[in-house]
């Protein structure tokens, strides 16, 4: 029995021989799994964005609420130039992320770590911007429970912020592993998968920036 | 007002548009009889909520669609189930066949396409009928009563009916538990709710429609004959969901006008010194914070205190209970009691207030309800987390004398003419 296990199976697929063993799709399980998860996340953010859009409109048309302070708060509270800058910061973090992956495929540890740290830094800057923005809104009187608009807004952007935070934790873990010398060219894909998540979070912000902040 | 109203009804007889329905109804009734017999088999019991005994144009239109669909479904049901039985018997493996192999058939594309397309065609046929009936049900009939509409307001756990005469957007009078409509004319209903989602359903007259807070939904119904048609709230709405019922009462146009005229009057103020007067005082002291009686409560819904206020027969105050003027999310309001004694049921239309045949007041029920409401239906009148009002009628702790006086007063609540 032991022999049959180690002997190559028909078609040359050896049970123990993991190296060079192709999956049916030619994609690793981890990467396929991440993409499936990202596909699923589309529905999550879609739901939050739709809720926000619906309630933004509802608030503006709710009888007795037109032109009240609360509605004006909902409409005019955004500081677009500020948010544009933080959007830019998040976009650039995608660039540094992809450069980090690129460096790792060359096993260029120094560059990889630099870009990785840059990504973490940019992501943290974005988060700090969000914290600042939330604080400013609350100071203006737009709290989480103020109205349907504010609940939907904070929930949507809060969920995005939580995703960024998780991304930062993942990248920090990667950085720690690279310091231990465990993150080498041969597991570049691990970093790439973390990168996929990071880019997705960025892409979601691309949508939120336009749909939530810019379109009136 | 009343005469003009009557005239309107007279002028608008059945339009020819619905005549064909009458013809369809004839043979549908036969089929209906058969299916009723089959379905209700042992059900020799009377089932007043039945969906299979339409008494109005809208419910009849639904019935005309449902019956053929049921027949098609029945045929398919028999076909498949007999088929399964037949296959099971005929192709059962018998003794001695243990090692036999049937012909290894993998499929037949033409056949399978066939049984993809045929069900699709059947469904297409049903779809045509469905859309046609949907159009009927969603088009306001030409002869709809143009001079009034009813706003149906659900709350935990009873129904309020706000009558808007002249359809000018103002509520003219309010009643609860019983919605009175004239026969022979479609009536426009607008549904909403003051707390959670309820669903308004008079099975004999039309399908159900949700009464959702913050939304208005439309429904029309017409009763062909006089009668009392029972209904039930059908969207789960909390503790007393099972006890939340209502009646649609169809009266002849003349009776309806008389009823409307009566409802438009204010309640009588009983003479000082009588038991009824003491009952009124008990009412204003204990009940008027929630219940309204036209002619008793002032426009801002504070109880009338002085003799002068009673005599002034101050304006009506019902609008305070309408969700149109800003809905409190929580039931804080109670049924309007003006002309209470024109109704036959109370407490979610579940208990007898007056005997339908004799008109005799059921004093037991009335006293018992006032004495301890939670004996009559499950409620949660105490304030809870996030709810400062509680849900339902609280126990008031009146003395027995006060209860007697109150019942004496409530028994007077009917327009003079009625």
């Amino acid at each position: 029995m032991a022999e049959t296990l180690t002997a190559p199976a028909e078609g040359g697929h050896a049970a123990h021989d993991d190296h060079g063993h192709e999956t049916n799709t030619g994609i690793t399980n981890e990467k396929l799994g991440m993409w499936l998860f990202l596909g699923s996340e589309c529905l999550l953010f879609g739901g939050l964005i739709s809720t926000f859009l619906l309630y933004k409109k509802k608030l503006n048309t709710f009888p007795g609420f037109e032109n009240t302070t609360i509605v004006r708060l909902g409409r005019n509270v955004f500081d677009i130039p500020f948010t544009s800058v933080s959007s830019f910061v998040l976009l650039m973090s995608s660039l540094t992320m992809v450069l980090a992956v690129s460096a790792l495929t060359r096993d260029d540890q120094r560059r990889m770590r630099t870009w990785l740290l840059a990504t973490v830094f940019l992501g943290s800057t974005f988060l700090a911007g969000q914290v600042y923005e939330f604080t400013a809104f609350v100071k203006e009187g737009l709290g989480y429970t103020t109205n349907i608009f504010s609940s939907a807004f904070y929930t949507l952007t809060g969920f995005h912020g939580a995703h960024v935070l998780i991304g930062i934790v993942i990248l920090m873990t990667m950085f720690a592993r690279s310091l231990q010398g465990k993150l080498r060219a041969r597991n570049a894909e691990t970093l790439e998968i973390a990168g996929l998540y990071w880019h997705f979070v960025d892409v979601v912000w691309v949508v939120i920036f336009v749909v939530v902040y810019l379109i009136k | 007002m009343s005469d003009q109203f009557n005239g309107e009804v007279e002028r608008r007889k059945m339009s020819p548009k619905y005549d064909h329905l009458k013809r369809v109804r004839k043979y549908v009734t036969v089929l209906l009889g058969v299916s009723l017999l089959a379905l209700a088999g042992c059900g020799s019991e009377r089932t007043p909520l039945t969906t299979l005994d339409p008494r109005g144009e809208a419910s009849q239109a639904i019935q005309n669609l449902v019956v053929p669909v049921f027949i098609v479904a029945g045929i398919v049901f028999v076909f498949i189930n007999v088929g399964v039985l037949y296959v099971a018997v005929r192709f059962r493996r018998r003794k001695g066949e243990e090692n036999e192999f049937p012909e290894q058939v993998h499929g037949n594309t033409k056949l399978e396409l066939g049984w993809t397309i045929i069900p699709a065609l059947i469904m297409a046929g049903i779809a045509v009928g469905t859309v046609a009936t949907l159009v009927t049900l969603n088009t306001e009939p030409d002869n709809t009563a143009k001079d009034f509409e009813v706003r149906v307001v659900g709350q935990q756990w009873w129904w309020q009916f706000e009558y808007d005469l002249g359809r000018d957007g103002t509520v003219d009078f309010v009643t609860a538990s019983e919605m009175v409509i004239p026969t022979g004319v479609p009536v426009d209903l607008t549904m909403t709710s003051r707390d959670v989602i309820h669903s308004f359903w008079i099975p004999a007259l039309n399908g159900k429609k949700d009464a959702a807070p913050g939304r208005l939904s439309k429904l029309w119904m017409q009763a062909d004959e006089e009668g009392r048609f029972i209904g039930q709230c059908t969207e789960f709405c909390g503790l007393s969901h099972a006890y939340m019922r209502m009646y649609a009462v169809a009266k002849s146009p003349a009776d309806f006008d008389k009823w409307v005229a009566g409802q438009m009057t204010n309640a009588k103020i009983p003479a000082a010194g009588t038991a009824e007067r003491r009952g009124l005082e008990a009412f204003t002291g204990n009940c008027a914070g929630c219940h309204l009686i036209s002619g008793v409560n002032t426009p801002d819904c504070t109880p009338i205190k002085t003799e002068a206020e009673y005599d002034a027969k101050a304006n009506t105050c019902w609008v305070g209970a309408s969700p149109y003027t800003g809905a409190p999310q929580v039931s804080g309001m109670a049924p309007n009691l003006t002309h209470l004694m024109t109704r036959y049921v109370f407490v979610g239309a579940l208990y007898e207030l007056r005997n339908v045949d004799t008109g005799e007041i059921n004093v037991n029920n009335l006293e018992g309800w006032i004495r301890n409401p939670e004996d009559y239906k499950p409620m949660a009148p105490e304030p809870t987390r996030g709810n400062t009002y509680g849900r339902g009628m609280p126990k008031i702790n009146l003395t027995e004398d006060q209860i007697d006086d109150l019942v004496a007063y409530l028994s007077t609540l009917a327009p003079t003419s009625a």
Partner: protein
Amino acid sequence: MALVEREPLALPSGAGTGVAVEPLGVLARPHTKTGWRSWVSTVDHKKIGIMYGAAALLFFLVGGLEAMLIRIQLAQPNGTVLSADVYNQVYTMHGVTMVFLVIMPMAAAFANYLLPLQIGARDVAFPRLNALSFWMFLGGGLFFNTAWFVGGGGADCGWFCYAPNSGVAFSPTHGVDFYAVGLQIAGAASLIGAVNLIVTVLNMRAPGMTLFRMPVFTWMQLVVQFLLLFSLPVITVALFLLTFDRSFGANFFNISQGADPLLWQHLFWIFGHPEVYILILPSFGIVSEIIPTMSRKPIYGYPFMVFSGIAIGFMGWGVWAHHMFASGLGPISVAAFSLSTMFIAVPTGVKILNWMATMWGGKITFNTPMLFSAGLVAMFTIGGLSGVTHSVAPADTQQTDTYYIVAHFHYVLFGGALLGLFAGMYFWWPKAFGLMLNERLGKVHFWVILVGFNLTFGPMHILGLQGMSRRIQTYQPSDGFTFWNRVATLGVFVIAVAMLVFLYNIYASWSSWKKAGRPNPGADPWDARSLEWSIPSPTPEHNFDVIPEVHGQDDFWHRKYGEDE
């Protein structure tokens, strides 16, 4: 079992991948083979599958007791067995338990156990995530049920928990909080499981096992996992909104602030309708394995079976608002969803006719799995047809929220999903445990449950058409509902007897097998068709000594009997 690997990663996560050669965090694979430790620490898809099944059966007993309480309360008008408050909790917990903690995990049990075997893999793609999935599901289910003890009572808002009735103002106990958080946890577990199983099927098939050679069960599970993947995030959103409303004072369902009560309904049913297919498709898959096996014929119209499953999966996204015909959607929405719902009946009908065609001309062995399968075809048809009458929107406004719809979905979920799952249990029991369930008791189980089921839910069609609303804690003597309610209550006791027979069967089969030393039923007791039957029973831990090479559909059958013609 000496052949099991000694090195932790000899058969690593994905004995077929290995491109990311050195995973970053390497935890040793647990080695305990026996005792409770082997179960608690296992990452083996088979043990996890069995645990899913055991947990689901346990919850089934809980949900069943709740069902009996409901029926006892309704056995007479003005019932006083349960107060309105408790009744509302009992029926809510019954519904949620049966949907999320019984049928879904039972289907997950089969998926976990069988998918790797049917595609010729040694495990799922992510064994540890698989274990996480199971324990999260169990945690979520137990958490949800602890509401009885620490939440001031169970959730009391119905399984779809419509806002604003689910808000703090109208449901002040913590039952709904437990509902929201418990389902959130169980939902995350299902999402992880879905990713895991999809990757397994797409990536880890044995050589030659192309997608269109996969057994129909695997296909149906693949569709189900995709439905889970895309529908769970929607209920996640809804549950978060509800939790935030209840716990942090958000305004998502605060009507006085202008919130819309239909938002919850849309989000819930966008998830909820695919959920219906998540519940039923696994059973369709099970039956599609059993009927060909017992008829000794290949499945009739394999491509049609597969594509109708995929079609149901896609169309399931476009019909959700048929749950809301009475909610005041507006005529155009109603018409559109009415039509889309009608046409989803077509692929379902194709399946039923193909099963019949499979049986046609066969040599059918009517053993217990086959009886349950034929029972599914007949009973599900009834549920499907009453579903068609619901798709007719005007008719639905009379029928919805009455017992007619209760009858409908019980014929689908009990007569469809559950009968299929029972069929699967009898069918794969020898594979999982190396012993057969007693045939005679199995047949008694089937016939008693068939009678009990029809006694319980058949009359509900009549009650519904007679106008009995669902979710009412009692009715009046004058309503005329008494007779058929009595019949239904009688029926639930018959079902209870059937379940006792089933539990006794499990016990008796196990003990007689142990004591009498009955022979192992062997690898292939049914003369079956798919790969899992080519390996010993119970399945060895590594599944396949040699990863099989597949040359066609029903490869194992053809290995035994040669190609057709």
